[in-house]
């Protein structure tokens, strides 16, 4: 396991990039080591939909040639990276773990992929996820579930379960995920890795296949806080190709990592923590104590509207999904199932191409937006969203940062919740509020539950407060050594 690694650990992205840039290690050798680790355990874990052997090798060789020629390949020189399979890679299949996009090769790279490559990263594969990122266990993937590397009978969480498992298994030091209601942070918690949902608009979504556009964000997953910071600094920043991208330059987060939390005010959010399992609550309390010993002042915080966050999310996200997924009609890409006319072709294609969870959310969203129900469901959910944003604003008047549980439990057994969607949705209860409010939040591994499985704690910050958030995450990580 890579969890708990230090920045001097040769397995970290920071160490790999430093060694490759200095000519001490070859990117091609680093890649081979990681491909060997993948070959050994991937059949058990199933973190990937696709492993890119040849393409990754030519990328690694290009990095080595640059170093040999005296050029600097960049801050991620030779670092193997896994990319969630809902992020477009030019000429490389991008399926969203759905039959409806099986075999489709995007004609362009997502901006985050372009930025990774420009920084010298080597993309080793596309990771499994819940179909169109809709799920909390990676079990709704059309290509079979990913298994938790800590216990193969359990889920890795989701929807970015493949990325979380790939990092936890040591297949890659860092990966990209996407987080609409907790899809980076919850699997990070269940797999014992760091997972970051940046501020809405901080990272370009050009080339991220849309699920719920007012909530989706791309972010890093890593074995260490420093590696997550390194990747975030590469992918963050304004992109004219994404109209929701926040303009203007911003300082990197990596520079602030060592600044500590002395004098910071931290609010412990009861609504997002107290209903979690007792062993999870105990880990959050331990994290609060660690921040206090590092000089922070921890007090109870309250977000009363968070009680309604889950219900609001499961109206807003399906409503947006029902609109976004209307584009899968068999005309422009992916699957087509023929019909006697266009309308019959649309329905035959969508019926065959979408799995049950995607159909559920499309129907739920269509219902929530339909005449006669719009105000009662979608309208009310949008008003609750306003209340929650006000609650966060009030909390951040009193506190610099908030602390909470990430997931209400540790990893659960495969199959345990597949027939009960509401029970599955409840896994997102503590992560959803950050998406609804657009603020950054991250999960940091903080020990184990009674069953010995990883537990993460969640740090939340005001919009664009990533540096402050990472300072607390770094303190928490150090306190575990």
């Amino acid at each position, binding site marked *: 396991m890579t969890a708990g690694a230090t920045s001097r650990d040769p397995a970290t992205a920071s160490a790999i990039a430093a060694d490759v840039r200095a000519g001490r290690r070859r990117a091609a050798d680093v890649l081979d080591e990681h491909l060997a680790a993948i070959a050994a355990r991937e059949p058990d874990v199933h973190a990937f939909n696709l492993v890119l052997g040849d393409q990754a090798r030519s990328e690694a060789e290009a990095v080595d040639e640059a170093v040999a020629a005296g050029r600097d390949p960049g801050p991620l020189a030779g670092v193997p990276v896994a990319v969630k399979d809902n992020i477009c890679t030019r000429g490389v299949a991008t399926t969203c773990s759905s039959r409806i996009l099986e075999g489709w090769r995007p004609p362009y790279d997502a901006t985050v992929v372009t930025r990774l490559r420009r920084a010298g990263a080597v993309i080793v594969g596309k990771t499994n996820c819940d179909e169109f990122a809709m799920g909390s266990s990676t079990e709704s993937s059309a290509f079979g579930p990913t298994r938790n590397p800590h216990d193969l009978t359990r889920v890795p969480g989701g929807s970015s379960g493949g990325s979380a498992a790939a990092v936890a298994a040591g297949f890659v030091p860092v990966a990209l995920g996407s987080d609409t209601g907790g899809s980076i942070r919850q699997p990070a918690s269940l797999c014992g890795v760091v997972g970051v949902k940046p501020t809405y608009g901080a990272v370009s979504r050009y080339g991220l296949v849309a699920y719920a556009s007012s909530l989706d964000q791309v972010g890093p997953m890593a074995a260490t806080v420093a590696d997550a910071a390194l990747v975030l600094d590469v992918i963050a920043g304004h992109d004219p190709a994404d*109209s929701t991208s926040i303009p203007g330059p911003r300082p990197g987060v990596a520079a602030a990592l060592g600044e500590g939390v002395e004098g910071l005010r931290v609010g412990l959010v009861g609504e997002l923590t107290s209903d979690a399992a007792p062993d999870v609550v105990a880990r959050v309390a331990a994290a609060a104590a660690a921040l206090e010993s590092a000089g922070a002042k921890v007090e109870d915080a309250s977000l009363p509207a968070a009680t309604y966050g889950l219900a609001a999310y499961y109206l807003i996200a399906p409503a947006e999904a029902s609109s976004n997924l209307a584009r899968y009609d068999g005309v422009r890409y992916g699957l087509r199932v023929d019909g*006697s006319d266009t309308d019959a072709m649309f329905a035959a294609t969508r019926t065959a191409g979408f799995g049950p969870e995607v159909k559920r959310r499309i*129907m739920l969203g*269509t219902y929530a937006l*339909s005449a006669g129900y719009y105000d009662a469901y979608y*309208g009310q959910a949008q008003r*609750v969203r306003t209340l929650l944003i006000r609650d966060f604003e009030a909390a951040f008047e009193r506190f610099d940062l908030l602390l909470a549980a990430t997931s209400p439990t540790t990893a659960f057994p495969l199959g345990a919740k597949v027939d009960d*969607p509401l029970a599955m949705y409840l896994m997102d209860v503590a992560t959803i509020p950050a998406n609804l*409010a657009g603020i950054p939040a991250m999960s940091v591994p903080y020990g184990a539950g009674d069953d010995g499985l990883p537990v993460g704690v969640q740090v939340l910050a005001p*919009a664009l407060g990533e540096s402050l958030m990472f300072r607390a995450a770094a303190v928490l990580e150090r306190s575990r050594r």
Partner: protein
Amino acid sequence: MAERLTRDDVLKVARLARLHLTEEEVERFTGQLAAVLEHAADLAALDLHDVPPTARPVPLVNVLRADEPRPCLDRDEVLAEAPAAEDGRFRVPPILGEAP
């Protein structure tokens, strides 16, 4: 407050969303979607008439670029990934029930 979701509601939204459901799926989805909507009933019961709705978490302004020609996606590369293409266009079945 909306009444409990019925199988007719499910059939209607499936039709709107261009999804065919089997008899078994209609039964299962009706129960599952009703359970989620019951959870949402807490929201519908709140008095929020004086609270404005939020559509997105950050204020956005419309973004326009200068109207200058520049390269776009390669047409052949895009069409190569389409289920059916002809003469530089996407090919679809008859739209109005007539052969093209």
